[in-house]
């Protein structure tokens, strides 16, 4: 009898510990955390002008950065930037290192199994950028085993490039800055990147670069959030809707990219 009660006690203790554990797991929603903390932590990229870039003094600036600042202002908190690279965009959300990812982040079903996405604030295409002296005119001409194409490790180009150029050799880098330097110095023949990024790079390096005709993939650029927090998604998605609808987005785009934003509803 005494032994039985001992077992019972043990069970009770275990049940108590489990209950305590699950109570602990029930952390406040991200929205509450952000308001309490007074800061909004946003993952951004360090080398993707004009979306975002980090000046050597460590200050981030760009289109994505301004978006983040506006969201923080709307929530009446301070923005805090966490500069990362392509692979860390997903992990930073997974590990709750950040509350949002605003980093030229293309939404797709594969990614949305691990992180959540808002509606897009930009629709763009991935294209191939080559050096000015390259004789090719279209993407198809580069589908040879000799072609080396720089891509961001873990980015959407991992699928898009082999789908369009099955013969070309893929060369993986961690940052767009390394890709661009590899292209400029002749270490690779092309880089697969966002049309708007390419346009800016061509402007920044006059008479050195050009884009090839043809798209590799369509990309819906959206804000990423940690999965499983509907309240947080609700707030940020509403903000994106209004950002798009009021024309704020179009004005901000013009400021950073220098030309009018193509209508994002275009292909919906």
């Amino acid at each position: 009898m005494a032994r039985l009660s001992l077992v019972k006690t043990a069970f009770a203790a275990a049940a108590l510990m489990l209950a305590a554990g699950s109570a602990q797991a029930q952390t406040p929603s991200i929205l509450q955390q952000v308001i309490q903390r007074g800061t909004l932590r946003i993952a951004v990229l360090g080398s993707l002008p004009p979306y975002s870039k980090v000046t050597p003094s460590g200050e981030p600036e760009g289109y994505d950065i301004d978006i983040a600042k506006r969201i923080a202002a709307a929530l009446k908190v301070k923005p805090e930037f966490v500069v990362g690279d392509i692979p860390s965009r997903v992990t930073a959300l997974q590990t709750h290192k950040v509350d949002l990812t605003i980093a030229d982040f293309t939404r797709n079903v594969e990614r949305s199994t691990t992180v959540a996405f808002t509606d897009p604030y930009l629709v763009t295409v991935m294209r191939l950028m080559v050096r000015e002296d390259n004789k090719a005119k279209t993407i198809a001409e580069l589908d040879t085993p000799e072609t080396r194409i720089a891509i961001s490790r873990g980015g959407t180009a991992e699928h898009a490039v082999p789908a369009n150029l099955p013969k070309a050799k893929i060369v993986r880098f961690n940052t767009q800055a390394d890709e661009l330097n590899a292209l400029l110095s002749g270490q690779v023949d092309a880089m697969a990147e966002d049309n708007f990024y390419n346009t800016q790079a061509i402007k920044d390096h006059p008479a050195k670069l050009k884009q090839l005709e043809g798209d590799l993939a369509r990309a819906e650029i959206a804000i990423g959030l940690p999965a499983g927090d509907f309240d947080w998604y609700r707030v940020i998605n509403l903000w994106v809707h209004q950002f798009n609808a009021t024309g704020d987005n179009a004005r901000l785009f013009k400021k950073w990219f220098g030309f009018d934003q193509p209508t994002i509803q275009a292909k919906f």
Partner: protein
Amino acid sequence: MNQSWVAFLPLFVKAAGITIWLSWLALMIGAFGGTLIALMRTSRFLPLRLVALLYTEFFRSIPILIVLFFAYFGVPLVLGIDLPPFAAATCALALHASSTMSEVVRAGIESVGKGQWEAAHASGMRYPAIMRYVVGPQAIRVILPPSVGVYVATLKESSLASIIGYIELTKTGLLVRESTGGGFAPLLVLAVIYFLINYAISLGGAALERRFDVGQKFLTVGAGQ
């Protein structure tokens, strides 16, 4: 866009300070941890010796890059503890430094002859007292010069923190490279700054070695990463 890198020299200097501080912190934590491991390694108890051996062998067989990625991405994922880039870099560098330092400290302890232990025991001293008054003061002369080599190694390894986005010296150089429109001047400046810092430290180490006259160069510290 295309400014000269010279305009960024003050930033390089500031970043060099960050790099020196980061690696110093890692070295200090590593020295503390390494001493504990070395005491375990020289202990009379087999299990302690075994644990210390496994620890040392583990960290000298894993690239720092992997430890760094694990600290930055793996730890928050698995344990739910969030490590910012600075903490992750310090931890990874300190773990690696501790395994190197444990070998350095062990060599120091073992350089003190058995006879002295026996004599100290015979005069009624206990382990802490022997370490503190007999072995320690002699071992430190053997330990200090190679420690300088570990500092240089840690300083070079701290360049890896740039890969997880921490803005230390290397990352600053890469950011300056972008702001100045590519080119290799910023990379060469980086190499020169690292060389000057490390060479100065190495010279200090050589002076220390002459002063203590240990006669053995610090070869234990292999190719830096």
